[in-house]
């Protein structure tokens, strides 16, 4: 049976866990360490933790906090936020982070992607690409937490990052974030066709059926935030993760 990775993505802001809608309206949802412990018990495939305030505050990764997280994570853990130097990548890997996630810094310095891949191997360097629509409705790559349009075409940028040594692309559609309206499968299809490395679909998932759809459109893995931390129409905070039986029936058996 073929399995694909289903990855909760957690956002950290001011030491708390938050969740956004279209990269705005951040709601506090709890304590990060506690969330990692719960996801551990639920035996999640992998987890991605993004400190979304680090880059905006021009601050490096909070190593002490990250070590606390890795000591509780018995699954692969990806970390992103505020990474600008190769030394920080080395330090993160030594601390037990499996994958470093680069977003703004990959745009500012593709060399960091290259250096990171040379040092820790491509499989541990993930480039996160936030994609939004510009004034004319064209898809562009955004950085700095979705606040700055680089004017770059996502397909060209994805190819450039693959060439620089990225081992995986974490592709987030900004206007889908937190909306529970399904992935932007067209975008996923377009990007996964233009690179050989795995594309992880992010943004909009509301059900396991959405995962299946993203995989059938070319994604190698799927990620979600809101779906795993909110429950019901009033967005009550409740951490959840589909069980193996559901994944087998609705996802693994259909791909």
């Amino acid at each position, binding site marked *: 049976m073929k*399995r694909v*990775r289903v990855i909760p993505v957690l956002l950290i802001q001011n030491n708390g866990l938050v969740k956004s809608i279209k990269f705005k309206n951040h709601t506090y949802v709890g304590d990060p360490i506690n969330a990692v412990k719960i996801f551990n018990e639920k035996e999640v*495939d992998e987890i991605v933790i993004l400190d979304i305030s680090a880059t905006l505050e021009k601050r490096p990764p909070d190593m002490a906090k990250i070590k606390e997280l890795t000591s509780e994570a*018995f699954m692969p853990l990806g970390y992103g936020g505020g990474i600008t130097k190769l030394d920080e990548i080395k330090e993160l890997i030594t601390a037990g982070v499996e994958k470093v996630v680069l977003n703004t810094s990959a745009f500012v310095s593709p060399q960091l992607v290259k250096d990171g891949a040379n040092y820790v*191997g491509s*499989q541990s360097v993930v480039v996160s690409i936030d994609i939004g629509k510009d004034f004319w409705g064209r898809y562009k790559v955004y950085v700095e937490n979705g606040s700055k349009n680089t004017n770059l075409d996502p397909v060209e940028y994805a190819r450039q990052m693959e060439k620089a040594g990225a*081992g*995986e692309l974490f592709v987030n559609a900004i206007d889908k974030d937190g909306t529970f309206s399904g992935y932007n499968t067209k975008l996923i299809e377009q990007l996964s066709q233009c690179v050989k490395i*795995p594309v992880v679909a992010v943004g909009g998932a509301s059900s396991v059926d959405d995962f299946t759809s993203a995989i059938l459109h070319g994604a190698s*893995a799927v990620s979600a935030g809101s779906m795993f931390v909110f429950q019901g129409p009033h967005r009550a905070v409740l951490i959840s993760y589909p069980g193996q039986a559901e994944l087998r029936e609705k996802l693994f058996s259909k791909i």
Partner: protein
Amino acid sequence: MKVTIVDYGVGNLASIKNMFKKINVESIISSKKSDILQAEKLILPGVGAFDTCSQKLAESDLLPSLNQRVLIDKVPVLGICVGLQLLLERSEEGVLPGLGWIKGSIVKFNAAKMTPELKIPHMGWTDVTAVKGSKLFDGMYESPRFYFVHSYHPSVMNEEDALVQATYGYPFTAGVERGNIMGVQFHPEKSHKFGMKLLENFARL
């Protein structure tokens, strides 16, 4: 029941130590010959390129102590990922030698043999089967699955040395065991309760 994690300058040792801590097994990370020579159990980690690992292990000056402890004193050793690959004689990935404790070589995933063709590296969770009785799989949970990240896998010369089989495009050997020498291609330290059980079994050997 103490485990010595060999530090030869390669790999994510903190994760292995974290998991031993979680299952209440004492472990140390060491690059000292004296620790290797007194070790009750040895973990040989490894990530990245085969030649980098082979070279660093050779430069670490720990080889004579490892040979003594594993081949003569017969202390259990578990190679993880490239640590497993080092147990064999050589790898298609590089030119430097492996330890040669297990006969065979490390080969690249053959995309042409896969139906359908899958992406390389093989990255993610895959179900595994123990193909022979092994204490490492004693009391293992049902439907064991482990986290893999690799482009190369073992090809053992003696079929009886194969311990674990997994399928990615085609079946391959994902773990080996010959007496006190064991290795797994996957990452037990990143594989939840399945990894905990396997590492606990190893620590109890």
